C-alpha cells in the first residue's frame, strides 16, 4: 500500500491529480450539455468514453476507488451499448450525473466519495453491465 502522508513529494503528485479532476469535470459537463441539446453524436460518445476510461484506470491509484468503480461501470456500459449515442439518453444522463456528483465531491472534499458506491443509480449501473 502506498503511504501518501509520509512522503511530501508523493502527496504533491496526488494533489495534482485531485486538481486535474476539475478539468475532467468541465469536459464531462460539456458532454452532458450536448446530450441536453440533442447534439450527442458519435464523436461525443467516443470522447466521453475516453474520459471515463482514463479516469477508471487512474483514480484508484491515487486513493479514489469509488471514482474508479463508477467510471469503470460507465465505461463497461458504453462498451456494451450497441446503439451508442443513439441509445437511451435519459440513461446516459443518469450515469454521467452520478459521475458528475462523484467528481464534484472528490474535488470539494478531496477524499474518495465512498458513499456513492451505495447510490441507487450505481446499483442500476452495475446491474446493467452484468
Amino acid at each position, binding site marked *: 500500500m502506498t503511504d501518501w502522508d509520509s512522503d511530501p513529494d*508523493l502527496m504533491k503528485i496526488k494533489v*495534482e491529480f485531485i486538481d486535474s479532476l476539475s478539468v475532467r469535470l468541465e469536459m464531462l459537463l460539456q458532454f452532458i450539455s450536448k446530450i441536453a441539446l440533442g447534439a450527442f453524436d458519435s464523436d461525443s460518445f467516443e470522447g466521453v468514453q475516453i474520459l471515463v476510461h482514463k479516469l477508471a484506470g487512474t483514480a484508484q491509484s491515487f486513493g479514489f476507488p469509488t471514482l474508479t468503480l463508477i467510471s469503470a461501470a460507465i*465505461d463497461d456500459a458504453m462498451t456494451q451499448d450497441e446503439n451508442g449515442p443513439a441509445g437511451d439518453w435519459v440513461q446516459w444522463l443518469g450515469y454521467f450525473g452520478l459521475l458528475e456528483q462523484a467528481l464534484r465531491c472528490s474535488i470539494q472534499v478531496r477524499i474518495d466519495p465512498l458513499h456513492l458506491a451505495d447510490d441507487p443509480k450505481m446499483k442500476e449501473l452495475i446491474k446493467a453491465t452484468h
Partner: protein
Amino acid sequence: MHILLAEDEEQIAKLISYKLSLEGYSVFLAKNGQEAIDHFGSRDWSLLILDIMMPIRDGWQVLKDLRSSQWAKVPVLVLSAKGNQKDITNASELGATQYLRKPFDPSELAQLVKKMVDL
C-alpha cells in the same frame, strides 16, 4: 538502468516515474505511442512500460513495432484499464512480457518492475 515509459496520463506518468526513481531507475517519458517508437534506439532500455490507450499510435502498434525492430528483446510491461481476456491474450501474442491492469497500486508496480528488470 533506463526505463522507457509510454503513458499519456500526466499524473500517472509522474507517479510511476517518482516511484521508480526511488528504486534507482532512470525513467524517460514518452507522451504518446509515436514518441515511444522514436525513442527505441535512443538508449539501452532495460524495460518498456507501455500504456495501451494513447494518442497518435496506441500501445498495440508500439508493441508490434518494437517486436519487429532491432530492439525486439527489450522486456515490455503492458499497463491497461482493459482487463478482459481478449486484451490479455492480445498482449501475450504480440510479445508483452507482463500485463498489469489499471488501476494499480504504485508500490506493487515498483515491485513488479524490480522483478522484471532484475531477472
